C-alpha cells in the first residue's frame, strides 16, 4: 500500500514540484536499481534502466491514476523497459524448450535430496555463481516472473498485473523457473560440483 508521504509527493510532483519528484527518486531509487540489476544482470544496464524509468515516469506522471502504489507503477515501467531490452538482445543461453524439459524431467526423474550435502551452504561461492548463471540464462519471460515473484516477493496477482499476464501464466512460469534452477543445483551435486549452466 502506498504511504501517505508518497501520495503527497506524487501530488506535488504532478503539479510540477521537481523537489517532490527528486524525493520520490530518493525513496524508490534503490529498489528500482536493484530490480534492474536482477533483471539485466549488470550494473551498467541497471543504471541505464533506472534513468530511463524515472524519465518515463516524469514525462507520464499525469497518467498515473493512483490505482496502485507509485512504486508498483515504477516497477511496471522498469520491468517493461527491461523486457524490451532483453527481447532486443535475446541473450538467453537456454531455450524455452529446455525450461519445459526441466519440468518434464521433474515428473519422471528421481532427484536426490541434496539439502544435507555438506557443500550446500550459503557461503559456497561456487554455488552462488552457478545459480547466478542459471538465473542469467533463463529466457526473459521466465526471468521476469522469477525475479518479481521469488526474488522481489511480489504476489502472483501483482506480477500478473505488472506484466499484463494471466495469473495461471505467472504461476506456470514461476513453477518452471523454480524446477529449472532446482535441476541445475541437482546437477551440481550429482556431478561432483562441476555442473555447467547454459545451453552450450
Amino acid at each position, binding site marked *: 500500500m502506498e504511504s501517505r508521504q508518497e501520495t503527497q509527493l506524487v501530488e506535488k510532483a504532478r503539479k*510540477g514540484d*521537481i523537489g517532490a*519528484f*527528486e524525493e520520490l*527518486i*530518493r525513496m524508490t*531509487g*534503490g529498489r528500482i*536499481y*536493484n530490480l534492474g*540489476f*536482477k533483471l539485466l544482470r549488470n*550494473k551498467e544496464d*541497471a*543504471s541505464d534502466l*533506472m*534513468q530511463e524509468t*524515472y*524519465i518515463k515516469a*516524469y*514525462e507520464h506522471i499525469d497518467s498515473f491514476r493512483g490505482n496502485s502504489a507509485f512504486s508498483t507503477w515504477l516497477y511496471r515501467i522498469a520491468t517493461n523497459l527491461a523486457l524490451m531490452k532483453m527481447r532486443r538482445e535475446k541473450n538467453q543461453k537456454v531455450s524455452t524448450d529446455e525450461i519445459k524439459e526441466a519440468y518434464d524431467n*521433474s*515428473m519422471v526423474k*528421481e*532427484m*536426490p*535430496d*541434496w*539439502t544435507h550435502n555438506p557443500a*550446500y551452504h*550459503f557461503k559456497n561461492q561456487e*554455488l*552462488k555463481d552457478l*545459480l*547466478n548463471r542459471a*538465473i542469467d540464462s533463463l529466457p526473459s519471460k521466465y526471468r521476469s516472473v*522469477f525475479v518479481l515473484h*521469488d*526474488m*522481489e*516477493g511480489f504476489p*502472483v496477482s501483482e506480477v500478473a498485473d505488472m506484466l499484463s499476464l494471466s495469473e495461471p501464466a505467472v*504461476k506456470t512460469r*514461476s*513453477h518452471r523457473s*523454480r*524446477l529449472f*534452477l*532446482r535441476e541445475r*543445483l*541437482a546437477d551440481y551435486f550429482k556431478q561432483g560440483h562441476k555442473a555447467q549452466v547454459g545451453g552450450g
Partner: protein
Amino acid sequence: MEADDKADKMKCEDICRLISEYLDDGLDLELRGIMREHINLCERCSALLKTMKETISFTRRMSETEKVPDAVINRVYCEIHIRYERRIKSETFAPPEASKYNKKKEKRR
C-alpha cells in the same frame, strides 16, 4: 477416511505439478492436507519439497541489495532537471497566438 483415499489417489506427478502452489500457500486446506499426507509417505516427493524450498530460499537470500552509486543518482537528477527546464521554457515561451487562443477559449467557457 475419505482424505486417505484421496491421498492414495494422488500421484507423484500431481505433487510435482502443484508443489509451487503448495509452497506459495495457493491451495485450499483440503488439497494441502492430501498433499502433505502423500509427501510424508513418499521419499521422492519429500525430496522434491525440500529441494524446491531450498532453491527458492537460496535465491531469495542471494538477492542482496546493491547500493545505488551516487553518480547514478546524480545522473538521474540531472536528466530530470533537463526535462524540467524544457517544460518551464515551453510554458514560458509559448507562442503568443496560442496564448491568445487559449484566453479566448477560457472566456468562452
